[in-house]
């Protein structure tokens, strides 16, 4: 993607998320803080860490090479990932331990488990074969091929986190067999989602 297009995508993202979030109103609050988008020239563009996401302007961005930090490392290792969201979420923020597969949609879209990364160096490992990870600083990382995919991952992370936390009052969430969870993820990614695209 060209740099200008990526910047315009981020500038329009606040309205896009507002529109999208209407369908997830019971799942908890998801606030997107930063968006990183893969661009031409082995680089990515991202809005500055403390910029006001609801009121961004063209000075609020920086571009980095993929070789520079953990965000670049994710883009380097995951060729099909074009969008990385850094979020703050009501329930995901409270997660301090790895979440096992407790819901089918979690296993299908996010991966077998949701890991917690201790620091920035651990994020790439935590999100390996997965589409979301929680950071110990209260933020989360959600990734996708498209902006919508990454946003759905953020919402599903919030739903799963809420289910995990609230189920503690009912004796705790019960895990699905991890092999079955892995099979579901493979089926979803390589068969169901492709078949769904054809079902028109």
């Amino acid at each position, binding site marked *: 993607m060209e740099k200008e297009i990526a910047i315009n995508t981020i500038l329009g993202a606040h309205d896009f998320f507002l529109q999208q979030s209407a369908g997830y109103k019971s799942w908890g609050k998801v606030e997107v803080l930063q968006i990183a988008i893969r661009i031409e020239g082995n680089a990515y563009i991202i809005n500055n860490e403390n910029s006001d996401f609801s009121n961004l302007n063209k000075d609020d961005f920086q571009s980095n090479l993929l070789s520079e930090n953990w965000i670049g490392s994710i883009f380097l290792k995951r060729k099909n990932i074009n969008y990385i969201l850094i979020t703050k979420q009501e329930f995901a923020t409270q997660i301090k331990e790895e979440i096992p597969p407790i819901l089918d949609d979690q296993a299908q879209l996010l991966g077998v488990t949701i890991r917690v990364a201790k620091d920035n160096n651990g994020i790439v490992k935590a999100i390996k074969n997965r589409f979301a990870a929680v950071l110990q600083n209260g933020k989360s990382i959600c990734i996708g091929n498209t902006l919508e995919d990454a946003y759905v991952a953020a919402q599903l992370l919030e*739903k799963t986190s809420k289910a995990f936390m609230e189920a503690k009052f009912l004796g705790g969430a019960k895990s699905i067999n991890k092999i079955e969870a892995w099979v579901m993820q493979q089926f979803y990614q390589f068969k169901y989602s492709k078949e769904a695209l054809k079902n028109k």
Partner: protein
Amino acid sequence: MDLQELKTKVCDAGKMLLKEGLVARTWGNVSIKVNDTQMVITPSGRKYDELTPNEMVLVDIYTLKYEGNLKPSSELKLHCQIYKTKPEIGAVIHTHQMFGSIVAAAQVDVQVLDENHQNILGGKMIKAAPYALPNTKKITMATAKAIENSNAALMSNHGVVCIGKDLEHVFDVARTLEKACELFIESKKAIV
């Protein structure tokens, strides 16, 4: 009501599921019974806000054969099984609604605490069907058994299924189940 009107109703119901936050993206599904042998159901893997009435799929409840090029929802076996075993039922919805999903993740039955909720849900207890992989015979039969004596059932680690005499009724059941699950969770918090 003719087939086209029924397809429009199912299509509108899919959009309503999305609007009310009972489903997201392509998850969940809704159907209504056309006659003793046929139902209309939402198609597989499609976003509700992009659907049109002509994309709803007519399915034979007994043979699972469907008309047209669009594949019906992958949960069609569950819908068909319910229509076969409960002939008085006119509409079925399957959702991944939030509070139902929390209780389903814990794999426990829901104690329905409010008397009004009991009347709408058809019982004092909503059962959780044991976990099985989605779209399998095992989950279909387990869920059909769990819903034998009420208007709703949980599908462990997955979501919920609700039944009613028509679409208006089944939406009432789904909304009420969500409130009943929330109340049930809150009652457990009060004990802790």
